[in-house]
């Protein structure tokens, strides 16, 4: 033990920054070192030696591929190979990686989804793994591989009581790139900031290589502190400063989102570790839904209304028939807490916290909301329902003959388009260039209400009407549409010759 500490002194010169160190080399050197060095006084910045060995044994390279969530016709779609650093933790065979690559169900059909996970063994063999769950809030994904096949690895033993303070020295264990056989690399760093919002996170004073993200973070005494996770940046934060973040931190932009690397201490994900949110539970039916349009409670508005909270969510709109409406919430109310938790929401980008809380509470659950209304705070209990279909999850239908793609109408679209909730029809979301529909003057955002006299209140009736037309093959078809709050007929000419 002490021998190896001394050996590190040779390799790791104090004050020198960031030298990726191959572990195998370190071990070799340690073994060959003479004993007398043991007697030397404790160094100012000693090496790590076996302190990191245990940690290194839990870091693994994970390969996988990405493919479009909705595969294009006539092919699999473009596939992309990816590589990340993972950490074994929790139950046997469980590996944690960044959740960045897992599209949310709100992501459109163009989003890429990961598949074909493989763990790279020392020596290059690969062991298949399976994605079992994603913690959306922490942006962490959980894989599982057969424990018997990964005996050469050891799960990191986290202790929730381990904490760090600003200035503490830590050690990041990551991987070198593939051409160096994913050799483990350690990076000494110091905690440069301790964040408490939106949850406890530590920032480091060093840039991180791609394959250090997802790596393990140890305290100076070798105890695991946490992992390098990526705090997801919402789009409005990404705009304008993404380039800076990437160049400063050397983070990757591999997935559908952009993340900012932080140390996620074990304390924040310990619950997920033993009981990860399961991917298959991530269905619309199980997610909680409240049914409000939100605006963050800015400091200015809080001051104006004399609300002394750390933030909140202003109810800007209430969807008819929603749990919020049933609970009597109305526009202008301010939600200060959910289920006993404070809502430190100040900016638009913070609203995701509220969304996550409601979603994860789950459909069917009754939760208390702390609601400010005209100067008084009261508790309102709402029974969450499941999320209705939204524009991103709505069904679509494509008619290749007419060259148009339509989507069912959803409450959120109707709201954003300032249309009555009772509006029926299907929304044109795509037109083939120079296709029959486009040439005849149909436009995207037209709402089709009738086709050849047949009412098309929903996607299924529209599909049936179009299939009927494809059988009778008329020369022209009258579409009755709603455009800019006015109805009209559009005569669509069809040319079936050669079809």
């Amino acid at each position, binding site marked *: 033990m002490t021998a190896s500490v001394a050996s590190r002194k040779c390799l790791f010169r104090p004050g020198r920054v960031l030298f990726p160190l191959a572990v195998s080399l370190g071990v070799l050197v340690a073994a060959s070192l003479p004993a007398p060095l043991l007697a030397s006084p404790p160094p100012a910045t000693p090496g790590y030696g076996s302190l990191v060995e245990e940690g290194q044994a839990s870091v693994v390279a994970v390969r996988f591929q990405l493919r479009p969530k909705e595969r294009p016709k006539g092919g699999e779609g473009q596939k992309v190979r990816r590589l990340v650093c993972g950490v074994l933790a929790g139950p046997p065979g469980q590996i944690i990686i960044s959740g960045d690559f897992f599209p949310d169900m709100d992501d459109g059909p163009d989003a890429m989804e990961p598949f074909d996970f493989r763990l790279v063994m020392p020596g290059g063999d690969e062991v298949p793994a399976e994605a079992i769950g994603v913690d959306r809030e922490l942006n962490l994904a959980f894989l599982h591989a057969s424990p018997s096949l990964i005996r050469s690895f050891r799960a990191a033993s986290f202790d929730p009581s381990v904490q760090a303070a600003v200035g503490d020295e830590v050690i990041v264990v990551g991987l070198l790139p593939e051409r160096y056989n994913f050799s483990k690399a350690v990076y000494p760093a110091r905690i440069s900031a301790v964040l408490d919002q939106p949850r406890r996170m530590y920032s480091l004073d060093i840039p991180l290589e791609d394959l250090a993200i997802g790596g393990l973070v140890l305290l100076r005494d070798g105890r695991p502190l946490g992992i390098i996770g990526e705090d997801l940046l919402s789009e409005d934060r990404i705009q304008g400063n993404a380039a800076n973040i990437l160049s400063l931190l050397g983070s990757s932009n591999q997935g559908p989102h952009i993340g900012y690397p932080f140390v996620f201490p074990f304390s924040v994900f310990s619950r997920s570790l033993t009981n990860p949110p399961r991917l298959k539970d991530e269905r619309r039916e199980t997610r909680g839904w409240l049914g409000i349009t939100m605006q963050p409670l800015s400091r200015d508005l809080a001051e104006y209304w004399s609300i002394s909270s750390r933030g909140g969510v202003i109810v800007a709109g209430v969807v008819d028939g929603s749990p919020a409406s049933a609970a009597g919430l109305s526009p*202008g109310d301010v939600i200060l807490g959910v289920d006993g938790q404070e809502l430190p929401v100040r900016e638009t980008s913070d609203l995701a916290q509220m969304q996550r809380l409601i979603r994860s509470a789950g459909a069917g659950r009754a939760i208390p909301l702390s609601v400010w209304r005209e100067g008084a705070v009261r508790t309102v209990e709402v029974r969450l329902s499941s999320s209705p279909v939204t524009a991103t999850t709505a069904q679509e239908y494509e008619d290749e003959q007419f060259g148009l793609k339509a989507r069912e109408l959803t409450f959120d679209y109707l709201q954003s388009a300032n249309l009555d909730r009772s509006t029926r029809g299907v929304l044109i979301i795509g037109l083939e260039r120079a296709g029959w529909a486009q040439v005849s003057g149909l436009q995207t955002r037209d709402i089709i209400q009738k086709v050849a006299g047949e009412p098309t209140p929903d996607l299924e009736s529209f599909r049936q009407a179009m299939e009927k037309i494809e059988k009778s093959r008329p020369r022209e078809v009258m579409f009755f549409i709603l455009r800019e709050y006015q109805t009209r007929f559009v005569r669509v000419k069809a040319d079936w010759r050669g079809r």
Partner: protein
Amino acid sequence: MRMIRISLRFFFFLTAVAAASGCAANRTSVHQSMEQMIFHARDRVFPALVHIEPILEVYQSGQRGRIAVTGSGVIFSTDGYVLTNNHVVERAERVTCTLSDKQEVTAAVVGRDPETDVAVIQLDVSQVRGKLPVAELGDSSRLQLGQRVMAMGSPLGLARSVSLGIISSLDRYLPEDQMPAGAATGQFNTWIQTDAAINPGNSGGPLVDLGGRVIGINSRAVTVFGENVGFAIPINLVHETAEKIIHHGSPQRSWLGVNWQPLKVISDGGARGQNGILVGGVVPNSPAERAGLRAGDVLVSYDGRSVAVRYEEELPPFRKMEADTPVGKTVQLGVLRDGSSVMFSAVTVERKSAEAEDFECREWGFTVRAINDEIARARNLDQTTGVIVTGIKRGSFAAEGELVGGLVIDSIDGQPIPNLDAFRQVYASLVGEKRDRVLIVTRRGSVLHFHLLKPTYEKSSPKAMDHDQDDDQEQSDDNDGPGDFHHDG
């Protein structure tokens, strides 16, 4: 009239002879004769040509300002009435005219009609030295495709210019959705299209036949992807509208509230081989809806007269028939519905203008517009209450409060805003007491947004300078029309 027809016949005759003989002498005489006719026509209208320089009030980028523009016009009565375009003198604070003999005379706006883009201004005849020249108005119903015409006016501000061309089309229909927003004219006419050069500044100027009669008012041109494609309003509609403006102050039109569509040949769905006009939609709470009309009906008779529109360029005459019905009259609408004839009675109401008053909140840095029935309908606002934010001044308190164009202001500091007058009062009182925290609640459908403005007030607010109006049209939601058609003027 007679003389010009003779001379035209003469012209065509000579052309034929020249073509047959190929004789150089004949060609020369054709040209000479042609030139004589141009001179003749020029002399009859050119003296009545007016170069108009109005100062317009504009609301742009969240502030009220002024711009100086140039346009054209033509004197058509000895009282000093001048025909021009609505868009030349819309919101004019003052109008200065230069006659063709270079006398400068001020004028007053008598009335405007945005729907036809016709306006009448009146010269202060007391300022005019000598006899006021007057142009004769022709009959636009007797025009012919290919007929020679001259455009007179001030293209690009170049006063007293004349260009020559022919009538390229007489039944040009410019659908509303292809016109710039707020300039949805051409409801009641097809346009005279000409290849006589028409440029910005020609607006309001006369299109003249070789007999020296005004047969149209030049109004617009394709300026982006086109050349020699100009459009004039037929003079008969201009004249009729001008008379109504002069005598009643407004065009006074009737309205039923139907989105009329041509009934083209329909090879499927029940209307095979029929004539009529398709009801594309009915406006809620309109006379047509009250009468019981609904989308899909086919109108076959209007107040006892058979009607049919097969192509969209046939729509304007029918719309004009509807508009010319006396306001408040009960009209019988003969309708085919599901194969059987049904008769409906509807009482017409006055067709209302979409024009609404604007207001500048200089201290807070934004502009608003009153909401009238037309605006409420076009934006599906559930009630005609509130005011619409039309523009935000860059860097203003309103911009910091994240106010954006297009939102409807519902309340200010808890005080409801039912209309522009209420808005003005609340604004004045809050500015008067130098309120430094102002909560503005805006609405889009049923969703509210809360904006906190934190204005500070200077001792004397500096007079706003007119900045370059062209380069910062930010956040105005009124400039989103398609780019193909542009106002000249």
